[in-house]
């Protein structure tokens, strides 16, 4: 493709994006001459270039649009929503044609005659009936910037006579401004300009020398010019993204070379060497910082298209929406900007389609008919926060509940026990939508889950806050940059690995490995009474092959990490240091391995793998592939075979054995009998500032029926604390027997509450407890934190 066509395409694309915004702004402020002038100019430029390049169709369309704009500018027409829509449609058509040009080098086979006719109709004199009050007649001089561009060569060429033509009066130039302010006489100015042409001095200096103006006045005028024209002060050029990435890589290399160079410094005896190396050091650091900045872009790059989106959507839905944006200069890494683009658009669409009500309904609710959609972005604590707030109807809890049950995403039992927050979280489940009908805007049930996945993929979080009738706020928190993350370096099997700080909880060092308990090859450690499953990094990565049988006496380093809410300990050889690392993708040949999320190059030039903690957890079966196995296990139909899972085996009442899935257990505790209190007919205890229901396993299932408590030595109760979806339950057991890692074949028990079935573990019949059911059957009031506002009755 021709260089000139390429330039035209790039330039026009930027211009069109601006056009969208300007047209929407113009609709809000139809009297703005400047906006109109700018729009006119853009269209005019495109028209001029495309006629020059021979794109006839495009030219015809732009020409029609331009004539319409000309009439608007001259005040012969007023800007109605129809006109704006027509112009926006023209912008879309131009965009399509440009895309066609990019592909085929022709302006496309589409027929735009109807659109051209529509634009022509809009400038039809009939519409002139509603001629607006025009405060100023046709005023081509009111297009300052356009004129100044044309004026430049003219002024420079005005070498000859001290005659003042109107170009000299251009207030965007120093001379013109001084003249306008009455600080110089036209004669003096003309003379000075003449001098400027002959000599090389600046206009201001000449004027001062001639005594035609005061130095202060000239300085003030210069300052005014600079502030008025910020675009003129900042010069930009276009640089390819690949070039910037390459630059970034090279700078990284330079930093490494610098580090080696600095080590050399101690060995060189030359006196000149030290200052030189320091200079190189400084320059390199500065260069690195500046190159990093080139990756940052303001969030307005994404937001800029929203005024248009909001306008179109609101009109489609018959709503009135006012869009406000705050913190548009907030900068983000280029790759993150790309990732948040779609989720942001989705949230904006949702807010308009679902959130903000129709004007009549808003009036009935005592609100302004015009809804407010607010976008905010700001930096805080190394993160970027983005908020999408609307003042619409808010999330309807009961409707979310009903829909979630209707779509079989959760059971009624579960929903009834959910807090508001948990109910709001339901909208992020795949397949969820409360829209009554599928519109082309939203309601297909794919969306919020995609938003959440996308944001979480880049290490961010999504939060919903909503008050019924008042509105909804969706809060997104994302890291500043993906390219550089803090990470902990560890060694295992002689190799170094990086663990991203986000998945890190704590570091534990055991002076002796004897503290680790090993049951059937599965290692656990009691971390403050809580069972922490352990994963040996070296055996997980196949660096050592021998299976783990017993623990050695040597010290052990454990990195406690979390993935999808599951905690586990990663046993490593050595914990080194934390470092900021630059994340690079793993090559195509290796991206099938789930254990790594990327690669990095450390300060010494060494290539190091970044561990993918969720991936490792899946490999080690800490978390299962699908996360809702516990919900499915609610309905045992026949013989159920579980995947290999870790179970805690307990004994309770008359030597009955029961198994509890280890993944549901949070802590093992001992409570004195006296701490158990009664709430209604239920036993509860205070635990972590909350009321936790207590279930005695000797009464599950209620076969015995007798209230006889099992004799507990020293009045201490062994309690297994289980929790699921934020609620906890204490299970009183007689004795904790073992931990097994087994694939269970479960025989259904008839139907007994609280028991999923029985199985044979270690040659003993063992009942598998249905912990989620037990938790949900426990008294609801006890599991909620006390003191909520419903309490007052």
């Amino acid at each position, binding site marked *: 493709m021709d260089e000139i066509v390429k330039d035209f395409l790039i330039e026009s694309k930027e211009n069109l994006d601006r056009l969208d915004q300007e047209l929407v702004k113009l609709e809000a402020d139809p009297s703005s001459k400047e906006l109109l002038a700018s729009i006119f100019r853009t269209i005019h430029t495109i028209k001029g270039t495309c006629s020059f390049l021979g794109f006839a169709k495009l030219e015809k369309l732009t020409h029609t649009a331009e004539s319409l704009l000309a009439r608007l500018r001259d005040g012969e027409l007023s800007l109605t929503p129809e006109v704006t829509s027509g112009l926006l449609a023209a912008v879309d058509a131009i965009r399509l044609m440009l895309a066609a040009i990019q592909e085929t080098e022709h302006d496309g086979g589409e027929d735009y005659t109807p659109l051209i006719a529509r634009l022509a109709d809009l400038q039809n004199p009939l519409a002139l009936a509603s001629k607006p009050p025009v405060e100023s007649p046709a005023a081509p001089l009111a297009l300052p910037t356009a004129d100044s561009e044309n004026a430049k060569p003219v002024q420079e060429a005005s070498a000859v006579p001290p005659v003042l033509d109107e170009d000299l009066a251009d207030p965007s130039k120093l001379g013109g401004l001084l003249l306008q302010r009455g600080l110089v006489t036209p004669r003096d100015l003309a003379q000075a300009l003449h001098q400027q042409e002959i000599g090389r001095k600046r206009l201001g200096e000449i004027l001062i020398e001639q005594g035609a103006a005061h130095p202060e006045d000239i300085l003030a005028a210069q300052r005014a010019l600079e502030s008025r024209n910020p675009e003129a002060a900042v010069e930009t050029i276009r640089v390819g993204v690949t070039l910037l990435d390459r630059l970034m890589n090279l700078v990284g290399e330079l930093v490494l070379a610098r580090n080696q160079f600095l080590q050399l410094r101690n060995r060189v005896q030359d006196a000149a060497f030290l200052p030189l190396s320091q200079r190189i050091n400084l320059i390199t650091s500065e260069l690195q910082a500046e190159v990093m900045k080139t990756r940052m872009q303001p969030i307005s790059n994404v937001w800029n298209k929203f005024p248009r989106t909001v306008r179109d959507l609101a009109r489609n839905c018959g709503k009135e929406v006012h869009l406000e944006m705050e913190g548009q200069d907030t900068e983000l890494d280029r790759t993150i900007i790309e990732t948040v683009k779609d989720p942001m658009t989705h949230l904006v669409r949702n807010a308009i389609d679902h959130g903000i009500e129709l004007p009549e309904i808003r009036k009935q609710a005592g609100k302004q008919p015009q809804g407010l959609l607010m976008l905010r972005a700001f930096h805080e604590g190394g993160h970027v926060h983005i908020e999408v707030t609307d003042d619409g109807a808010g999330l309807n809890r009961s409707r979310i509940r009903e829909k979630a049950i209707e779509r079989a995403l959760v059971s009624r039992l579960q929903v009834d026990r959910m807090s508001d927050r948990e109910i709001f979280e339901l909208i992020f489940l795949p397949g969820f939508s409360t829209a009554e009908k599928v519109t082309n805007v939203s309601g297909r049930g794919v969306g919020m889950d995609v938003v959440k996945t996308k944001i979480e993929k880049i290490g961010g979080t999504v939060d919903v806050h909503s008050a019924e009738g008042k509105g909804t706020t969706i809060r997104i928190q994302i890291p500043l940059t993906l390219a550089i993350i803090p990470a902990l370096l560890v060694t295992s099997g002689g190799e170094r690995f990086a663990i991203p700080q986000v998945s890190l909880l704590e570091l534990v060092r055991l002076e002796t490995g004897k503290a680790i308990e090993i049951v059937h090859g599965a290692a656990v450690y009691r971390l403050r009474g809580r069972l922490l499953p352990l994963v040996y990094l070296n055996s997980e990565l*196949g*660096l050592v092959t021998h299976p783990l049988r017993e623990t050695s006496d040597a010290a052990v380093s454990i990195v406690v990490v979390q993935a999808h809410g599951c905690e586990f300990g990663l046993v490593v050889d050595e914990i080194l240091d934390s470092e900021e690392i630059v994340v*690079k993708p793993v*090559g195509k040949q290796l991206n099938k391995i789930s254990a790594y999320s990327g690669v990095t190059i450390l300060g010494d030039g*060494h290539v190091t793998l970044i561990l993918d903690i969720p991936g490792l957890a899946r490999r080690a079966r800490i978390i299962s592939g699908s996360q809702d196995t516990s919900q499915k296990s609610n309905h045992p139909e026949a013989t159920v075979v579980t995947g290999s899972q870790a179970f805690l085996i307990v004994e309770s009442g008359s030597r009955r054995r029961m198994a509890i899935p280890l993944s549901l257990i949070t802590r093992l505790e001992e409570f004195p009998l006296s701490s158990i209190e009664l709430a209604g007919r239920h036993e509860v205890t205070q635990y972590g500032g909350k009321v936790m229901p207590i279930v005695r396993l000797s009464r599950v299932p209620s076969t015995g029926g007798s209230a006889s408590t099992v004799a507990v030595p020293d009045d201490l109760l062994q309690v297994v604390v289980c929790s699921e979806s934020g609620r906890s339950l204490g299970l009183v057991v007689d004795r904790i027997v073992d931990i097994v890692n087994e694939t269970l074949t479960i025989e259904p028990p008839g139907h007994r509450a609280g028991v999923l079935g029985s199985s044979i573990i270690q040659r003993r019949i063992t009942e598998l407890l249905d912990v989620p059911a037990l938790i949900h059957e426990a008294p609801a009031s006890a599991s909620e934190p006390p003191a909520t506002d419903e309490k007052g009755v």
Partner: protein
Amino acid sequence: MLLSRQQRMRKECRTTYMPSTQQFCTFFIDGHCFGASVAMVKEVIQFQPITRVPLAPDVIVGLMNLRGQIVSVMDLRRRLEFPERPFDQLPVNVVVQAHDSAVSLLVDEIGDVIEVQEETFETPPVTLQGFARHMLRGVYKLPERLLLVLDIERVVDLENFTHGSVAAIGTNLYKAHATESARRVQ
């Protein structure tokens, strides 16, 4: 008959395989001379420290730092199913650019860049059996030896061209390849 076959072959060479002049970067593996189109070879560098990648397929020796770019290192001996390189022999990196990613191929020794005559081109001889056959474009009969030309795209494509998957996924490709060469042999 013979003539027409040759003509057809030449035509095919021209259209599907070879531009009019072909330059090859040559290297040696277990005494065999292999070639890769110079257009695909980025650079040749001496052996570099390599970071091992646990769990990776064993043809991937690890990762290396090529001036800030991370490059997967593939042992061509393992990839083409030659015996392991003796321990005392340091391999050489031939960095190739395939699709969007660069891969470094470990070879025993590097040879010259040579220009070859189209007339000397043949498809892989049928006697050359086994998995390596699928990664060859063909053979040039040089005066002193044979130059085996590698299909670099396939060499670095572990997804579709692994030992196991050639049978399953690549059957069609293999069939096409087989019938084509059978036709040529006739």
